[in-house]
């Protein structure tokens, strides 16, 4: 059971949250001009690191807000959580 800290509600059990996959995937600025390969990269291709991973979670049972979590995928340790308008702590890898 992960113990995840919601930026608004504090630490809650994993069962209160919904997982949203990799964070910081920007929507293309000019989607109409992308090739199929570029669009596929945006839609389907995600990082899958073993170690710290910035990912989106939503506090679906609580305040229903999306936020980001930095979590180690090897140890399952939740390193930190932060709001969507805050940068990834420690920079981008």
């Amino acid at each position: 059971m992960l113990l995840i800290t919601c930026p608004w509600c504090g630490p809650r059990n994993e069962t209160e949250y919904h997982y949203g996959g990799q964070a910081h995937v920007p929507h293309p600025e000019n989607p109409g001009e992308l090739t199929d390969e570029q669009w596929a990269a945006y839609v389907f291709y995600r990082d899958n690191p073993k170690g710290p991973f910035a990912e989106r979670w939503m506090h679906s049972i609580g305040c229903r807000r999306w936020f980001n979590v930095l979590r180690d995928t090897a140890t399952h340790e939740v390193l930190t959580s932060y709001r969507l308008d805050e940068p990834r702590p420690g920079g981008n890898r």
Partner: protein
Amino acid sequence: MQSHPLQALVSELHEPVHPTVVMSNHVHVYVSQAHKGELVMGAGVDSYNGYGQRGSFHVIERQMAAAIELFPVFARAHVLRTWGGIVDVTPDASPIIGRTPVENLYVNCGWGTGGFKATPAAGWTFAHTIATGEPHPLNAPFALERFTTGALIDEHGAAAVAH
């Protein structure tokens, strides 16, 4: 491709009561009884990415609740052990079998929670692909290019339990 924890469990030994494998995508569990008498059950993946070879307890709890919903007689069975492994899941939860952009590099991967029953067909068509350089008609739709063309495979339910 995303790596997720997948968990399963066995109970202690019981008299034979359950002669076949039953899977339910409705309550989300599969359960069979091994020859010695253990009940073997599993369910879907943990939602998050993980390489820890273990998942969260509430997933086990949920699959036991589902099994008891299906078979109330299992309510008195005790869990003997649980374990978790890593499964690699593609965006459409179907495997990738075919060529890659690199010459002479072929892939047969991304099986997620599925695979055991499909092994003969996967081996046959993968061998065909390597021998002829062209995919067999059966594995042509499973090419890596489907994530560019958008012709995904709508078979989330094809695995033991959909994920």
